[in-house]
C-alpha cells in the first residue's frame, strides 16, 4: 500500500470513532444492571490502545538498539507519548465509571486501574529521563532500554496485582457487565478500531511535529 493511500485509510478510520460513539449511545438499549455500561465503549478501547502504544514504543526501541537508526528514537518517544495520553484517559474514564458503579472515584480493588496507575507513573518517569538528559545517542539508548523495561513491567505488575488479590485489598466490587451479545461486541469493535485510528493519526501529527522541531534545531545550530 502506498503511503498516501494508507494515510487516507487511517484518517477515514478516525470517522469510525464517532460512529461507534453514536451507535453506543443510541442503538443499544441500556444494559440491565449497569446503566452506565456505555462507558465501556470508551474505557476499554482507550485502555487497549494505550497498551498498543506502549507496545509500539517498545518495538521501536528494540529496533533502535538493534539497527541503530536514529529515526527510531523519535518514533519510540512519540508512541510512548501517545500511550501516556491514552493511559491518563483510561484512568479518568475508569474513575468516572467507578464513581457511577460504586460511588467512589478510586478503588484499589479494580485491577486495571491499579495497573494503569503504576504504568502511568513509570512512563511519566520516561519523560523525566528524557528532559533531564542531554540530546544524543546516550539519551536515545537510555530511553530505549527504559521503554523495554516498561513493556516488561506490564505483565509482571499484572501478575503481582493478581496474586496479591485479597491479601492487600478486598476485591469487593466487580463490573457486572451484560452478556456479550454480538451487537455489543460489534459496537465495541467499531469503537476500538476508531480509537486505534485516532491514536495512529495523533501519532503521525505528533511525530511530524517532533521531527520538524529537531530539524529546526539542527538548522539553527548550522546557521549560528
Amino acid at each position: 500500500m502506498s503511503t498516501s493511500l494508507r494515510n487516507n485509510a487511517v484518517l477515514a478510520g478516525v470517522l469510525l470513532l464517532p460512529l461507534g460513539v453514536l451507535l453506543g449511545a443510541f442503538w443499544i438499549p441500556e444494559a440491565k444492571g449497569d446503566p452506565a455500561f456505555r462507558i465501556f465503549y470508551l474505557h476499554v478501547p482507550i485502555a487497549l490502545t494505550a497498551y498498543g502504544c506502549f507496545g509500539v514504543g517498545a518495538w521501536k526501541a528494540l529496533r533502535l538498539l538493534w539497527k541503530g537508526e536514529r529515526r527510531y528514537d523519535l518514533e519510540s518517544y512519540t508512541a510512548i507519548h501517545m500511550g501516556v495520553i491514552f493511559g491518563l484517559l483510561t484512568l479518568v474514564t475508569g474513575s468516572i465509571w467507578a464513581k457511577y458503579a460504586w460511588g467512589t472515584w478510586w478503588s484499589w480493588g479494580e485491577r486495571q486501574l491499579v495497573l494503569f496507575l503504576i504504568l502511568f507513573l513509570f512512563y511519566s518517569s520516561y519523560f523525566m529521563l528524557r528532559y533531564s538528559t542531554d540530546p544524543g545517542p546516550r539519551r536515545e539508548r537510555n530511553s530505549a532500554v527504559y521503554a523495554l523495561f516498561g513493556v516488561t513491567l506490564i505483565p509482571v505488575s499484572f501478575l503481582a496485582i493478581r496474586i496479591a488479590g485479597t491479601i492487600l485489598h478486598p476485591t469487593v466490587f466487580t463490573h457486572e457487565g451484560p452478556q456479550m451479545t454480538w451487537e455489543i461486541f460489534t459496537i465495541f469493535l467499531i469503537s476500538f478500531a476508531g480509537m486505534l485510528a485516532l491514536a495512529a493519526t495523533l501519532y503521525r501529527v505528533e511525530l511530524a511535529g517532533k521531527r520538524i522541531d529537531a530539524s529546526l534545531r539542527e538548522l539553527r545550530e548550522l546557521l549560528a
Partner: protein
Amino acid sequence: MSGYAADVAALARKDLLLELRSRDTLPAMLLFVVSALTVFHFALPSGSSARAETGLLWIAIIFTALLGLARAFAAEREEGALDGLVLAPCDRSAIWLGKTIGVTAFLVLAEAVALPAFALFFHPLSWELVAAVALADLGIAAIGTLLAAMAAASRARELILPLMFLPLVIPVVIGGVGASVSANPGSFLGFLGLYDAVFAILCWASFEYVVTE
C-alpha cells in the same frame, strides 16, 4: 567462561575493597535504616497492627537501597573511571553483574542490622519474611544498578534515580509484603523469584547499551 567469571569477581571485589577502605556508604545505610525504623515507630499510632509494621519494614528496605544505589557509581564518576571500565576488554555486562553483586552485598549487610533491629523494636520475624527479603535484594540490586547507570547520564541524577526506581519496584513490594503476611507465602516467593529472573536477564542484556557513548 572462566574469563567472564574472573572479570565479574574482580569487579565485585574491587567495589567491596573500596568500601572497606573508605567506609562511606555502608555505615550511612546502617544508620539510615535504624533511624527510619525509629521514625516509623513514631509514625505509627499506638494500636497499629503487626501487618502495618511489616509493611513499613519494606519501605525502609526500599529507601535504604535507594541510598546505597545513589552511591553505586559514585566512585567511578568521581575518578572518571567508568570510561576506563567500558574500554576494558571485558564484556560490558560483566560490569553490571559485578556491580550488582556488590550492591547485593551492601544490602545484605545493611539488613543484617535492620532485621534484628526491627525484631527488637516491633515484633519477631518469620522465616518467610527473611526469605522474601533475600529474594527482593537480588531484584532491587539488579534493576537498581542498571537504573543508576542510566541516571548517571542525566543532569538530575539524584532525582531521576528514585523516580525511575519506584514504579519498577512496586511488584517487589507486593511480593515481599504478601510473603510476609499472607497465609500462602509460597506463591509470593515464587513471584519474587520470577521477577528477579526476568529483570536480571533484561538488565544483563541491556547494560552495554546504557554505558556506551
